[in-house]
């Protein structure tokens, strides 16, 4: 398997894991007695599903990350973690129809330029 595939898959799964953890914590907080913005049964199911998805994504992403570290330098592999920001930005545009500001576009382009530079080093 090529290094690029291992790195990209690991970072992509890690991104999904981070988002599901955030979703799980948010759902848990929303069902707490002092807040109760949603019924606690709904919050329970939502947070349980999110925490399951979190683990289901985190474990393979970690194994792939270890695989990547066995294939190359840490200083080459680690910067690829910044792609998770690009995945989040693209995901929020495509799935949530959110707007990305001009400043954020510049950030995304800079990260991609950095990734290209590093993958050629």
């Amino acid at each position: 398997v090529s290094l690029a595939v291992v790195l990209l898959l690991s970072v992509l799964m890690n991104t999904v894991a981070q988002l599901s953890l955030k979703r799980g914590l948010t759902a848990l907080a929303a069902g707490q007695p002092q807040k109760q913005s949603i019924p606690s049964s709904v919050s329970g199911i939502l947070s349980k599903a999110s925490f399951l998805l979190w683990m289901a994504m985190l474990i393979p992403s970690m194994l792939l990350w270890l695989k990547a570290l066995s294939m190359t330098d840490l200083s080459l592999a680690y910067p690829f973690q910044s792609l998770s920001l690009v995945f989040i930005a693209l995901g929020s545009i495509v799935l949530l129809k959110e707007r990305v500001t001009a400043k954020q576009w510049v950030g995304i382009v800079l990260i991609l330029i950095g990734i290209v530079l590093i993958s050629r080093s």
Partner: protein
Amino acid sequence: MTSHLEMTTPFISRHVLGHLLLVACLLFGVMAQLLLKFAILQVQIQPDAWLPYVWILGGLGVYALGTGFWVLCLGYLDLSYAYPFTGLTYVLVLGASWFLFEDTVSWQRLAGVVVICAGVALIPARRQKHS
């Protein structure tokens, strides 16, 4: 979202505690990566030994602590303020792996890391002002 995670702080200000948690989160995040790489190198040198797998577990534990510090930190600091600092981990990891693992740092790799840092600093969204 993180309001329920806030703790009362009788001795130090919330501002200071938030920054301490931020520094802890960055350092633990970097240490976790160094431990994992160190462990993998050990596995490659001696595949039958069990000690490297303890290092891997240690690395994962440090990673989990770093994540915990991050979640706690966001109870005290704004995400849009705290996030750009995570860009520092790319510089720290580059420096540490040059120093500890003798990675070759070409100008492309150095430039790539600097450019990524700048990109990371630009991404976080300002909190929306509700009218």
